[in-house]
């Protein structure tokens, strides 16, 4: 199987910060806004280099969405950043009217997504955000897997004309994708080719899926791993091509079952190519306090659980 090396743990939010800075240097229309979370969103470098293009909104996310829409109407490219829950659930109606229906070129930078936010517990651990954003007409939903891919995805989002939801996380995680790879919105990346089952993974779970594939190789099970970096629009061609080859699908995501990537792929397969499918996700639960790795294990989101799901389909 294809070998991936962790070049050292890095948080995906720092990939966002690096991408924002690089995009900001290339395009002076880019504006960064936050609701009292400049440091958490890794906007410090951008704010230091472009102080007039960094807008502190205070703890008032609803207004921040509207201000960003106004900036976008006037030709700017605003990135609004906060914790995932506070830039989705808290401001869903504002995003719906000002960004989605209003068709404004706003980029929603959503950090600390999923259960790996860790110790802050369930109030901050949204696992419903993908469902909310997927439901909005025209919203692009991106969930990159590591630092390098998050940086590239941020630059791609800046260049794309239209609303984008860009989801990333808090903890340091393996950084293993090519630092020079460009990011194509709407493209699924085949990380490893296999013949017995496909694991479609997104975000932090792509690395876990690769670890599972490596373990399963020792057992003689050949697993294809596909990184669904763009959840909407889904790369349907890539999903169908893989399942036509392997006949089995496991979908792994740090999200509630309802409305997530799993349901998206299940719906596609049910319509176009019925196949055996298993979910690895947060089920229908809230999180709790703990370290990211403890929570990943407790909620069934690590490599061991992905491998178990594959065995369940292959056996």
């Amino acid at each position, binding site marked *: 199987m294809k070998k991936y090396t962790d070049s050292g743990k890095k948080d995906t939010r720092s990939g966002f910060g690096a991408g924002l800075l690089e995009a900001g240097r290339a395009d002076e229309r880019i504006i960064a806004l936050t609701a009292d979370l400049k440091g958490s969103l890794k906007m410090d470098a951008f704010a230091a280099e472009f102080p007039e293009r960094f807008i502190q909104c205070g703890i*008032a996310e*609803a*207004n921040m969405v509207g201000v960003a*829409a106004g900036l976008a109407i*006037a*030709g700017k490219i605003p990135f609004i950043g906060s914790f995932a829950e506070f830039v989705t659930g808290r401001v869903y109606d*504002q995003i719906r*009217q000002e960004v989605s229906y209003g068709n404004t070129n706003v980029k929603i930078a959503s950090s600390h997504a999923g259960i790996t936010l860790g110790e802050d517990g369930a109030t901050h651990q949204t696992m419903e955000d993908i469902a909310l954003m997927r439901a909005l007409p025209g919203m692009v939903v991106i969930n990159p897997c590591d630092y390098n891919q998050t940086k590239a995805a941020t630059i791609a989002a800046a260049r794309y004309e239209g609303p984008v939801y860009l989801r990333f996380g808090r903890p340091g995680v393996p950084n293993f994708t090519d630092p020079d790879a460009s990011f194509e919105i709407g493209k699924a990346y085949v990380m490893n080719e296999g013949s017995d089952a496909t694991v479609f993974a997104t975000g932090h779970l792509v690395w876990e899926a690769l670890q599972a594939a490596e373990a399963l190789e020792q057992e003689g099970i050949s697993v294809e791993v596909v990184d669904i970096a763009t959840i909407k629009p889904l790369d349907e061609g890539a999903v169908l091509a893989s399942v036509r080859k392997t006949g089995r699908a496991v979908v792994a995501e740090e999200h509630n079952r309802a409305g997530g990537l799993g349901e998206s792929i299940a719906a596609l397969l049910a319509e176009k190519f019925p196949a055996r499918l298993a979910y690895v996700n947060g089920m229908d639960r809230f999180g709790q306090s703990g370290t990211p790795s403890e929570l990943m294990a407790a909620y069934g989101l690590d490599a061991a659980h992905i491998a178990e799901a594959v065995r369940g389909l292959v056996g």
Partner: protein
Amino acid sequence: MTANKETLKKISTQVRRDIIRMVTRAKSGHPGGSMSSADILTALFFQVMDQDPARWTRDGRDQDVFILSAGHLTPVYYSVLARAGYFPVNELGTFRKMGTRLQGHPSVRRDLPGITQASGSLGQGLSAAAGIALAKKLNADPKRVFVLCGDGECEEGQIWEAAQFAAHHGLDNLVAMTDWNGQQIDGTVESVAGSADLEAKWKSFGWNTIVADGHDFDAILEAFAKADALRGSGLPVMILFKTDMGNGVDFMAGTCKWHGKAPSEEQCAEAMTQLEETLGDFQP
């Protein structure tokens, strides 16, 4: 100024006819607040703003911008836009009908000239207006942004988030207006949400405030002149226009009953006897 005032009065009288006829034909819509803000928007579009149909673009660059935060006031908004030449007057007859550009609440997806942002879910337009005003500052564009809110709308928390933001960021190119008619769907503002000293509230948020009679063109134009003089003050301006819901038709005035209710054909005919056809009705 007197002749000008007479012209504005003629226009706003026709706008009121349009409002009643549009809502009656659609059998739905919001006539009450449209009538109370008819004089304000007539003055704004025909006298105050540096904006015209030939130059209008959604990004509002190098021209004044208007945002309707109280998105249900589409009858008055569309009438004023049509009468100012943004689109054909006879298109007013399509209001709220299947396939129309004149959606129940403003849409930017129908290519209707003059519409800068979607609204309808209340409390959001002030934030969008603040964002455009901020962009104008960043672009060194000296033009201004005007936004109309309802007094009931100011019960939304986001209004006060935006108030705090606009003052903190020194958006003195932002002129907000409140149609202070004292009415909302379920009754008077006082009965629904308690008495609101809006002037004290806006002052305490650091805004320049102006209070004016929203049905007297001398007072309206004087208020806008005062707002104009506050450019460079470093603070945004709120003009609180005291108005009557349903103003212009005796049986509709001063009550919340006509917030979101269409008159019958008979009531429409009765209203028409109270409003002179000054500029020609839209047809059919």
